[in-house]
């Protein structure tokens, strides 16, 4: 069974991860290969303070709105609703590493450890050089592995997370 302690830990991690989306709000680039739509430029410039070094797309206003929605649902412990909002966001930006990372957190808190691990890995594969995001994903992977009793692998994942975290300076 999915232990209570782990559940709380995962929930805490998730809230932190989703809180992180405020940080990512600033990043401005569009999904790969998409020219910036001229009309949204204005809105973007207001928030244009790159958050993490060389960050990958964090999302247009629609995606940010959906991530906010997801965060509200997570705070209300409505995890299915949160996942649905994040999936909506992914349909708009299917290569957005941050959304996958948050979805991984939502899966973890619901006890779906395999899904959580897979989504976190997918997030890493899209994360480019966002080391802070990668560190959070490795933490999610470590928690998922530990929940399944794979302690050695979990230790290794945690180590990876710590290394990446120190690189990112977060």
């Amino acid at each position, binding site marked *: 069974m999915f232990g209570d302690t782990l559940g709380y830990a995962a929930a805490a991690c998730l809230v932190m991860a989703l809180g992180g989306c405020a940080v990512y709000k600033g990043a401005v680039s569009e999904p790969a290969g998409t020219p910036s739509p001229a*009309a*949204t430029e204005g809105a973007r410039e207001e928030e244009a303070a790159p958050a993490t070094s060389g960050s990958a797309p964090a999302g247009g*206003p*629609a995606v940010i709105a959906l991530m906010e929605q997801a965060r509200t649902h997570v705070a209300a412990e409505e995890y299915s609703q949160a996942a*649905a*909002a994040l999936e909506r966001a992914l*349909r708009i930006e*299917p*290569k957005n590493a941050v959304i996958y990372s948050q979805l991984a957190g939502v899966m973890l808190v619901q006890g779906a450890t395999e899904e959580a691990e*897979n989504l976190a890995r997918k997030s890493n594969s899209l994360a480019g050089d966002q080391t802070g995001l990668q560190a959070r994903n490795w933490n999610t992977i470590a928690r998922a592995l530990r929940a399944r009793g794979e302690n050695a692998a979990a230790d290794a994942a945690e180590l990876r997370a710590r290394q990446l975290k120190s690189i990112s300076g977060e």
Partner: protein
Amino acid sequence: MARKNTRKKTPPVTHPWLSALWPPFVVISSIFILLAALYTVYLDHRVRSQFEGARWSLPAKVYARPLELYPGLRMQPETLGQELDRLGYRNDAKLSGPGTYGINGARINLMSRPFRFWDGLQTAKRLEISFADGRISNLKELDSGKVSHITRLDPLLIGSIYPVQGEDRILLRISEVPEKLTNGLLAVEDRNYYEHFGVDPKAIMRAMVANLKAGRVVQGGSTITQQLVKNFFLTRDQTLIRKAKEAIMAVLLELHYGKDEILEAYLNEVYLGQDGARAIHGFGLASYFYFKKPLAELRMEEIALLVGVVKGPSYFDPRRRPERALERRNLVLDMFANAKLIEPDSLESYYKRSLGVVQKPPQGTTQYPAFVDLVRRQLRGHYREADLSSEGLQIFTTLDPRTQEAAENRLKTHLRELERSRGLPAGKLQSAAVVTSVDGGEVLALVGGRDTGYAGFNRALDARRPIGSLVKPVVYLTALSRPHRYSLVSLLNDEELELIQPNGETWAPQNYDKRFHGDEVPLYLALAKSYNVATVRLALDVGIPSIVDTLDKLGYKGRPMAVPSVALGAFEMAPMEVAQVYNTLATGGYYTPLLSIREVLSKDSEPLTRYPLRLRQAYDEGPVYLLNWAMEQVMRAGTAKSAYNMISRDINLAGKTGTTDDLRDSWFAGYSGNRLSVVWVGRDDNSPAHLSGATGALQIWSRIMADLELESFAPNSPDSVVNIPLDPEEVEHDDEDCNQVMNFPFIRGTVDPDIEPCEEGVKRKKESTGNWLLDLFR
């Protein structure tokens, strides 16, 4: 009861002749009454079971994906206009109610319909949508003036899941039916509905008088309840016995059920038109059939027409007999005015309005039977067939109507074009197509054959055909996952090969161009040019069982027998199965089960099941990245380069052609960054289609893709990959020059030390070719 009555009514015996007669009389009348009672019980049972059946079997409603509107979405105003037309929104710049819109140059104003989604109710909103540079540039809520970040339109109803084929209905609850319809209907058909007990003696008297006066039947005295009974048993004969039976059943129905229940059943049951073999029952369906919009959006004169049609759907057919229908509608409008449902003063203006009927009735409510077939199959694991057709479930699917229409139209048109231009017999070619969203694993479109409106053989799911060269990416991926042995520039041998098979026969694979290409073909080029012999040699080296394993990891569970011909795709797969395997390649090695369903809600919009995004890393990212690079060369310089006649060169694509023996099957499978399509072309009788992958399926594929909003295919380079600039010519011919430089990906730490990279950005000085003539062309 019967016996008691008999005893009571028995007269006292006074005369002997009477006393001699009465026992048989009593016996006969008792038997008669008993039979009548039994018959009544029988009628009661029949009418009740019919009523219960009609009332409780609410078929599942199947919806397409809702259109999400947000700034940045690539869309032209015309495309949104088409989408709104498809949804039955009507052009009304004043936005007088939900389901209306107006186009004003680069702006569209609309009032959306309220809709209950998985995550709650979305209320009707007035929106102003601005467009610029092929995208939505701004979204404004007109009532509040606020900017909106994202909004969903109500999804298109694409079908219903019924127990019986050929029946089609949109069932409504009485609460969903506009009052002006129920009031209007009762004013015309049954004024005393809420007072009578199933039959209305006053109405019958009125009708008799009217009929006697006219000397023929001009008026019926049937109540709504009687008409419902008549509809249940679908008989049109007007015999007295039949009428008596209907009257008894009507009274029985009223004993068991409330007025609203009976009226609800009537509204859903009444026969309102005919579309070929399809009977149009119920106001819900009739509203779509005649006006292509939901009942809630009908205007008064449209309601009057529907109410008028009840009297004789064939006689007053608004499409075939518009003048009769108009006369009938106006008569009904008069009756509405008499019943004070409309102002008598406004009658004149109502008379002037046209019938408003759409000329071409929309195809059955199941417009995309092949896709709905997939939905039904994928629901099977979770829901019983009986529940699907009776519980009123609401199924939200992944179907993208725009993509589906593009796939259907391109497939149909181009099959005809192929038959015409290549002198093939008309109507013999068949085809199937699947389109997915790549990362989400959503099936956006599914075409089961060229007759798309017909729920026949679903080739996309059930036509298993040899896949030919579509298997080659699997062979090359298996090789590339042995990076110490194979890279994209490894030289393969494409010289004649003879294999002695276990049965003693010799197998000598041939190339499509009937030539051999020497023993130094770079691996990526052997794939791009689809060389068979080099591929078989490669497959034998990596081992056929490993190839079968790779296929399994990528998502095909069929496990073909591990024989050498596997390397050339001599085993059968359905288009949908191919899409699953290629989707794993398109996502960089992440397997996502292809799904057609997002959510299922109960009839009261309570969430029941969600089909969340699932994915699993199925294959190492490094080798998949290398393979995708080679599959891009298939499109740029290989067998599929004609795709760029239809699609902009700015869009990176990856894919593979497939052709089988004697040109029986023509395949193409490929993807951009956001869309994957698989197309098969062949014949149902498995005789030669006379088309290769490139001349047949690829042509349809590139036309479908050209209609979609494509993102370039640009996978992230994984950490395990290093890019080395090389001159492809050099790789091919051992040339010393770096005339053109391309980045070739390699698995880090496995790069052959003999490979000399071209210096990035610096092209080597061109030296003499040793041929004076060629030197002139340097």
